[in-house]
């Protein structure tokens, strides 16, 4: 809502020195979101005056037609001589009154004006358009003024070019502030000044000879006022003051009847509609649409109506969507000049509608037809039903005043009884909500200021004013008191929070994982969870794979990516691709986040019950809510490309490899205190020979390794890109092992090396497992330090060299004891994996 200060001052006698910024600060404190104060004409400087065009010479030798004019500007130029002005516009004739800016003036921009040579003439100033004066963005030529103004009259004052305009973002609960009346009320309270309420005007009582109106749905339309004015001059135009106020409020002047309805709406907040009476067939009827009915609205669009739409109809059918937009058929006709007689033909009899509609009905229709009109915006937020008659009266008065019409005596006022809604609150409730003592007297006074009637002592029975449909609950009344007493005056205290237990194990684990992976050289990313078929195709994930069963969005940002991720890899690989594309070619990324998995085809999935809100849902209902949701486990993933250790003076580069991906999984498992077992596996999108299955016990929890070359090619990734992905929920399902304090033996260690030859297909993990079992309790640690393939070990074989460390808790081991343990280890390896001792 844009509110010109000059207009606002009509309703409250503000101190003259108050600036827009002062008022802004006051209103913000009272809870109006005043986003800014526009300074109209701040850099404008005269002379800017009314001129009368005396002569026009058409210059035709240029690309576009140009006019060289002589304009009478009275004495404004100091000489009284006509001013010579070159003008590119063509919407004026000799004798017209125009707005002339003279040399020495400054137009908004700032744009200083001087006499200048142009189109072979000297132009002593300019004839101005609305846009050049900062009045609006109309493109249709220069301003032609009504004829009654004298040449030389100051146009800055005439056009009210200097003003301040408050720009207020009105929240959903303050519909009444979508009017000068509402903002003025807030300002009056803020300044402690009286308000001149524009709705307090004399209105004749309803009678039976006004326009015929039938309301078939009184629940949706509890008030319908109709008035009529005859003898309206179709040639009459909106006066400049009205046009200017409408412009400053952010709307466009259109025609007199429309301008008047808009003006009254801005002033009182009551949307009005004006009908050409000759185009209405019979009684005006308010009813719901029947499905399939059609209406061409004012914007020229043919709309198919929904049976929930509330309509204004006549005998011919719908003539408007109530409170949203009128129909084209009953529109006020454009004034047309008869070329032979010069007579102006158009609408001469007007019916004014001032009605009150149920907010929800209007909101739904406006949304359904995508018509967020000024009227709908107000009805949605709640309009004062008691202002209907005054608003209609105001429109009638203006039609009489400005368009020479005559008000008809008939006053139609269809009223459905509305229950009076009162709220009982303890007089000290605002104190208890705020944490500050206001006292009963202040509470009552503040509630009365916003328009409530208040009775009672300890318990107050409060009836909110008709323009505040938002005041329904005790806390709404508390807010009124507290905001008017000033949120800035609230004390600052701290509650006594019971002792807490800090983060949960799962939360601390995610932190440890983040720190561990980042310390290992990986960079965390947070990717959007949106994926499409293309990336699953690229990864080579086949139909039937559970990762193909996605949760889909009805309104995705991109139709290429309508699904939620079932794996972290698409996002991670996308980020990898982006980094490599931007020149960061050596890169390791990780992400911790949820994926969305659909298991099975439970009928409850995606079917959340619509529960009431006036009671707690039952445990069963809560379970139904949860059953409607897909599984959303936490995962951790990582991707690697390029070098882990770049080439440098220390030696050659070392690439990130499948082993780093497996190591990242171990890092996560270590952080979780879980023992991870690695087994050879084959799983899309990993390289079939370089894929590790990651297990906790017999539970598969994820995969790591090098990606399949086909996936790498399809997704345009660097060669040998590696990846890891783990399900954190599965990883930690068994809980973390509690670390046992180790017993530290101070006896010396006995070290023995052993090299074993095994078939190439034998897995290191199996050899190690055999050695450990065979070596028995004396084995402290075991480490593979070399893998060798070559002639000396034979084709299809490999040699694995291990360093074994033996130690006893209670004695120094003898060489024989250590050798015996080693031999037993070798024997076990021979039995289990056919290992033979090398050389």
């Amino acid at each position: 809502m844009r509110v010109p200060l000059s207009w606002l001052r009509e309703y409250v006698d503000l101190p003259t020195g108050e600036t827009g910024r002062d008022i802004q600060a006051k209103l913000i404190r009272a809870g109006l979101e005043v986003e800014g104060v526009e300074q109209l004409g701040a850099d404008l400087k005269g002379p800017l005056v009314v001129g009368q065009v005396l002569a026009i010479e058409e210059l035709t030798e240029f690309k576009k037609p140009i006019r060289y004019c002589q304009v009478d500007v009275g004495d404004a130029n100091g000489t009284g001589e006509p001013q010579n002005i070159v003008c590119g516009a063509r919407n004026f004739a000799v004798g017209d009154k125009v707005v002339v800016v003279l040399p020495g003036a400054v137009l908004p921009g700032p744009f200083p004006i001087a006499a200048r040579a142009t189109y072979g003439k000297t132009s002593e100033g300019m004839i101005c358009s609305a846009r050049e004066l900062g009045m609006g963005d109309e493109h249709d030529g220069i301003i032609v003024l009504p004829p009654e103004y004298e040449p030389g009259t100051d146009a800055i004052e005439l056009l009210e070019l200097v003003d301040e305009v408050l720009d207020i973002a009105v929240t959903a609960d303050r519909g009444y502030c979508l009017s000068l009346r509402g903002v003025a009320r807030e300002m009056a309270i803020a300044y402690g000044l009286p308000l001149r309420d524009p709705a307090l005007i004399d209105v004749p009582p309803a009678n039976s000879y006004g326009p015929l109106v039938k309301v078939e749905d009184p629940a949706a339309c509890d008030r319908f006022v109709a008035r009529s004015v005859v003898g309206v001059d179709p040639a009459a135009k909106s006066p400049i003051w009205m046009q200017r106020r409408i412009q400053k409020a952010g709307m466009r002047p259109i025609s007199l009847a429309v301008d008047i309805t808009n003006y009254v709406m801005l002033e009182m907040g009551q949307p009005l509609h004006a009908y050409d009476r000759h185009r209405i067939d019979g009684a005006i009827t308010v009813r719901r649409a029947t499905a399939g009915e059609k209406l061409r609205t004012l914007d020229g669009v043919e709309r198919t109506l929904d049976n929930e739409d509330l309509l204004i109809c006549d005998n011919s059918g719908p003539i408007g969507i109530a409170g949203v937009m009128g129909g084209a058929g009953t529109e006020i006709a454009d004034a047309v000049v008869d070329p032979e007689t010069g007579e102006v033909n158009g609408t001469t009899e007007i019916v004014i509608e001032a009605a009150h509609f149920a907010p929800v009905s209007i909101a739904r229709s406006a949304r359904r037809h995508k018509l967020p009109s000024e009227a709908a915006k107000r009805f949605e937020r709640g309009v004062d039903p008691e202002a209907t008659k005054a608003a209609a009266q105001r429109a009638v008065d203006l039609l009489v005043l400005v368009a020479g019409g005559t008000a008809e005596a008939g006053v139609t006022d269809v009223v459905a009884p509305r229950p009076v809604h009162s709220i009982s609150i303890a007089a000290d409730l605002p104190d208890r909500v705020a944490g500050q003592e206001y006292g009963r007297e202040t509470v009552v006074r503040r509630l009365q200021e916003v328009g409530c009637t208040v009775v009672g002592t300890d318990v107050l029975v409060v009836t909110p004013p008709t323009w505040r449909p938002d005041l329904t609950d005790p806390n709404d009344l508390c807010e009124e008191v507290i905001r008017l007493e000033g949120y800035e005056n609230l004390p600052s205290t701290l509650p006594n929070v019971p002792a807490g237990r800090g983060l949960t194990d799962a939360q601390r684990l995610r932190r440890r994982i983040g720190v561990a992976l980042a310390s290992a050289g990986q960079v965390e990313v947070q990717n959007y969870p949106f994926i499409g078929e293309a990336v699953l195709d690229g990864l080579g994930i086949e139909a039937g794979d559970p990762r193909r069963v996605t949760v889909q969005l009805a309104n995705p940002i991109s139709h290429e990516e309508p699904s939620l991720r079932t794996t972290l890899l698409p996002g991670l690989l996308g980020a990898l691709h982006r980094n490599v594309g931007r020149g960061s070619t050596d890169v390791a990324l990780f992400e911790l986040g949820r994926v969305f998995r659909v298991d099975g085809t439970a009928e409850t999935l995606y079917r959340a019950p619509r529960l009431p809100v006036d009671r707690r849902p039952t445990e069963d209902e809560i379970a139904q809510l949860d059953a409607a949701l897909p599984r959303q486990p936490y995962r951790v993933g990582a991707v690697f490309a390029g070098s882990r250790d770049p080439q440098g003076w220390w030696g050659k580069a070392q690439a990130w490899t499948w082993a780093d991906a497996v190591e990242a999984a171990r890092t996560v498992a270590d952080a979780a205190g879980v023992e991870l077992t690695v087994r050879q596996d084959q799983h899309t999108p990993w390289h079939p020979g370089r894929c590790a299955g990651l297990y906790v016990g017999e539970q598969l929890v994820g995969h790591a390794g090098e990606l399949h070359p086909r996936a790498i090619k399809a997704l345009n990734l660097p060669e040998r890109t590696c990846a890891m992905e783990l399900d954190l929920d599965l990883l930690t399902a068994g809980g973390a092992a509690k670390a046992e304090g180790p017993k530290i033996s101070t006896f010396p260690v006995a070290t023995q090396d052993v090299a074993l030859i095994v078939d190439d297909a034998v897995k290191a993990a199996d050899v190690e497992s055999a050695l450990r079992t065979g070596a028995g309790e004396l084995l402290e640690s075991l480490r593979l330090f070399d893998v060798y393939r070559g002639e000396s070990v034979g084709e299809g074989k490999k040699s694995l060299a291990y360093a074994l460390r033996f130690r006893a808790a209670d004695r120094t081991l003898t060489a024989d004891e250590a050798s015996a343990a080693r031999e037993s280890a070798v024997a076990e390896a021979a039995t289990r994996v056919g290992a033979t001792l090398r050389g």
Partner: protein
Amino acid sequence: MSAPNKSYDPVEVEALKPEEIERLRDEAIAAFAAATDLDALHEAKVAHTGDRSPLALANREIGALPPAAKADAGKRVGAARGAVNKALAERRVALEAERDARVLVEEAVDVTLPYDRAPRGGRHPLTTFAERLMDVFTAMGYSVAEGPEVEAEWLNFDALNMGPDHPARSTQDTFFLKDADSVVLRTHTSGVQIRSLLAAAEPPVYVICPGRVFRSDELDATHTPVFNQVELLAVDEGLTMADLKGTLDHMVASLFGEGISTRLRPNYFPFTEPSAEMDMVCFVCRGESVGNPDRPCRTCSSEGWIELGGCGMVNPRVLVACGIDPNKYSGFAFGFGIERMLMFRHNVEDMRDIVEGDVRFTLPFGMEI
């Protein structure tokens, strides 16, 4: 070697003449002094103190002397050998020190050589910022609550007093699931607050709910369809708006330094009543840029205040929907976007940098924020 000769007069043994011994001694000392490195010293040592050195030979001659002469000769030879050994030791210490010094010089390296071998990692500032907030509130006694990102509408909207016709429940603001009934991508973490209230048999409930939320906006310099929020909920007996204000003041002082406080401005949210918009004192200019064109402040656009988010007293209707008696309990809540806070706290100009995962953006933030 001479055979023992019992009648030998000491003065007649050439090698044991006092002047001869002194000469041998001086020769040895001179040879050591002349040695310029440890190898030369070793040669000199062998020559002058070895088994075949003149002094060693002289020493052996003592045995052949008559007993009367032995003591005298032995004393003289012993003194000479002592002096020689001392000189040798001193020279060795000196030469070793020289050698050590030389080796250290030779072993010098260019310590300015770059050693950028270890890959550098980092945590995302959105993560660490949320952690920082969690730490502030867990220190106060709050717990951290989490919940699903795909959420039932009742938990995301209805229970929060956002009825079926609330404008946020349109496809312009909310991601809906396809072919689903009343399931959405959560638009705030408030559903977690509701879950916390439902889970508690009875207040008090003090929780902070960080998490990812979704609104159907396009990504641009200031908007992202996926962002992170932190919301707080406190429900207990006798909680007031003053408690809300104090909690906010404590939070901004923890994050932005002593003396930074908040202000509340009336606003409207369905889930709180009274509701407020919360601003904090600009931590850069502390308000000194206001009306001071010479010292403009980019962080607050010289407004002196920075908008943080929304807050208020929990609407009693929300408590009713969770089965909590609004006559006995009251509560307060607030919420804000972490991206926005990150942007003004760390001078991040473009939202896209936060969401695109470029390592150059994330690395400077390190492990904590």
